[in-house]
């Protein structure tokens, strides 16, 4: 298995839409074949259409607010000693997280497809919040599927969705988290695919959704590679790009433009509570390949193939599967994956929020935990860049419950 140079990663699949012959594909009910084929054709036309690209860039600049800041975390660097730590503050994007890129592009596509309704899933609530925001902006009616457990633990984002006029559909089946929200959203689409466009909130699901999402979040690294060159004059020899991975959308976007460079990629999964056997880290814990939500991927499951329960303090990472693109990057050894525990993520949130002007949500706090762990062991010639892809405000309740206070 090998990654081709000079070819976008999302296009490195075979005729069955499998990456490395093993990951991805379209394991979908017959009813979705045509809508997915239609969407695949439309997207491949649009991504080569200059006017569409202009439109995308216009909204990324004027609506999302590109570029997001690239800053040095001087205090954290000094505090830890060792590697130089930087952050790409993607949480400065409109709405407070990277999910706005995918949401904006999906709304633009839905308009081109002549659809008036858009539906999406959400875990941490960011994908839902952004989709509801973008839907309002582009005049689409919006429905968001969200696990009942997540509705309780991510209240601020739920409020935001309501304000944006979206209908929130609580999902009470199974674990009542992201995995069930994605299933329920897909079921809804099976029943309404003639009138409704579906947005999958991460780089998961049938191939076309992986493609659209990764293509959208790639904006992060398009900005970053320029910012890095401006800061260092070139791409530093010893550069590590650290990102949390749940479904894997922000990491894909953060790494994409650096694919053919020497930059090292480190993906940090949700290790769950230290005391629990449960986790949401299929790559770190060598889960087997299985089919989840239409795609083959490493997935937390039992021997028979029943999808396993996961546990993480971070709703956005609390997902048993992982993007087929990350499976591909793992098996080709292009990226390394590890996990951080709930406790390590909380500590990282505290440390970063107290020392710096940014306050990462619990998802990127997993990435910061890894940066904090390795930075002291590295020399000052090493550069670590962490994708701070979400803001802690949505986690206020959880943080107060866990450590007694919240500061931002």
């Amino acid at each position: 298995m090998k990654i081709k140079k000079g070819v976008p990663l999302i296009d490195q699949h075979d005729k069955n839409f499998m990456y490395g012959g093993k990951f991805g594909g379209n394991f979908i009910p017959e009813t979705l074949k045509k809508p997915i084929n239609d969407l695949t054709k439309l997207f491949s036309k649009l991504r080569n259409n200059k006017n569409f690209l202009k439109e995308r860039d216009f909204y990324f600049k004027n609506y999302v607010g590109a570029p997001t800041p690239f800053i040095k975390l001087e205090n954290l660097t000094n505090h830890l000693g060792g590697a130089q730590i930087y952050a790409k503050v993607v949480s400065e994007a409109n709405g407070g997280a990277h999910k706005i890129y995918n949401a904006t592009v999906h709304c633009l596509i839905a308009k081109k497809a002549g659809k008036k309704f858009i539906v999406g899933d959400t875990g941490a609530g960011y994908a839902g919040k952004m989709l509801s925001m973008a839907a309002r902006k582009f005049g689409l009616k919006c429905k968001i599927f969200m696990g009942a457990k997540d509705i309780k633990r991510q209240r601020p984002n739920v409020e935001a969705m309501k304000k944006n006029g979206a209908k929130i559909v609580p999902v009470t089946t199974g674990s009542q988290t992201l995995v069930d929200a994605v299933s329920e959203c897909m079921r809804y689409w099976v029943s309404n695919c003639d009138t409704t466009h579906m947005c999958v909130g991460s780089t998961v699901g049938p191939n076309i959704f992986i493609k659209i999402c990764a293509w959208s979040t790639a904006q992060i690294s398009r900005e970053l590679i320029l910012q890095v060159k401006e800061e260092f004059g070139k791409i530093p020899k010893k550069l590590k790009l650290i990102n949390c991975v749940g479904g894997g959308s922000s990491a894909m976007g953060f790494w994409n433009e650096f694919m053919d460079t020497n930059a090292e990629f480190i993906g940090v999964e949700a290790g769950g509570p230290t005391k629990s056997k449960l986790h949401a880290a299929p790559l770190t814990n060598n889960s087997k390949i299985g089919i989840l939500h239409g795609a083959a991927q490493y997935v937390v499951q039992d021997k028979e193939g029943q999808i396993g329960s996961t546990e993480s303090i971070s709703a956005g990472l609390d997902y048993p599967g992982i993007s087929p693109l990350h499976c591909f990057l793992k098996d080709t050894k292009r990226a390394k994956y590890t996990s951080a525990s709930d406790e390590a993520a909380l500590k990282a949130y505290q440390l970063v929020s107290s020392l710096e002007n940014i306050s990462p949500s619990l998802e990127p706090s997993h990435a910061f935990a890894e940066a904090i762990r390795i930075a002291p062991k590295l020399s000052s010639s090493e550069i670590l860049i962490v994708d701070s892809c979400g803001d802690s405000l949505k986690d206020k309740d959880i943080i107060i419950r866990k450590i007694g206070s919240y500061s931002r």
Partner: protein
Amino acid sequence: MKSKISTVFEQCKMEKRPALITYTVAGDNSKNNSLKILNSISKHADICELGFVHNCPIADGSQIQNSSYRALKNGINLKDTFDIVKKFKKNRPEKPLILMGYYNLIYQMGENLFLKNCKSSKVDGLIIVDLPWPENKKFAKKCKQKSISFIQLLSPTTTKDRIKKIINDSHDMIYYISMLSTTGGKLKVSPKKILQNYNKIRRVNPSKNLVIGFGITDKTIKSLKSANGLVVGSMLCKSITDSLKMGQNPVTKLDKVVYNLKNKIL
């Protein structure tokens, strides 16, 4: 040798009625009862579909999800499922049994071992919800080699060109999904419209056995009786749920429900 599935359709054609196809879930509401239910409803049903449970079913509505949840809670697994089939087929060797489920369970067991188990428990056919054509070509071929029918699905969104190709690769039975819906949705298309689509597909190859499923209940089954076969699933799962709520015996309840369904299409 003619398959049991083909034989049943021939017989039903002679009797000028559609085949009644039931769907229940292995392990619902218990391992024993699901076998008892099969034994009892197969007096009236022509073909029995048995669901092997997956906990992430992206095409199933709430009724079948409830049944799956009950079955999983009872600790159902593939070994038990094959066991139920084996016992059922021992009791009714001529009654075709079709297993229905999602691909991940087959993928984990391995296609070959799964088919070996199907063969030894005398499964007659397979419906794999999330393994569409052409991705299913290789597996369908393996099924054929083992004389197990791989049942292709068609839906209202399947294009004309695709319909032809799928029918061309089909075995003893083809399943037409009546409308854009998960299982058990309310029939949102008129039976007349469903039959119009159905007949269009039939004309592509009139010799194929084409059945209709999704949204069929005791209220709608009569209006669709010109089809080769009709599948009732969610209504049966709901009947189990209802019988449990009312403290009734799900086995006798389902026997009655399927008997009534059969009478409506005679």
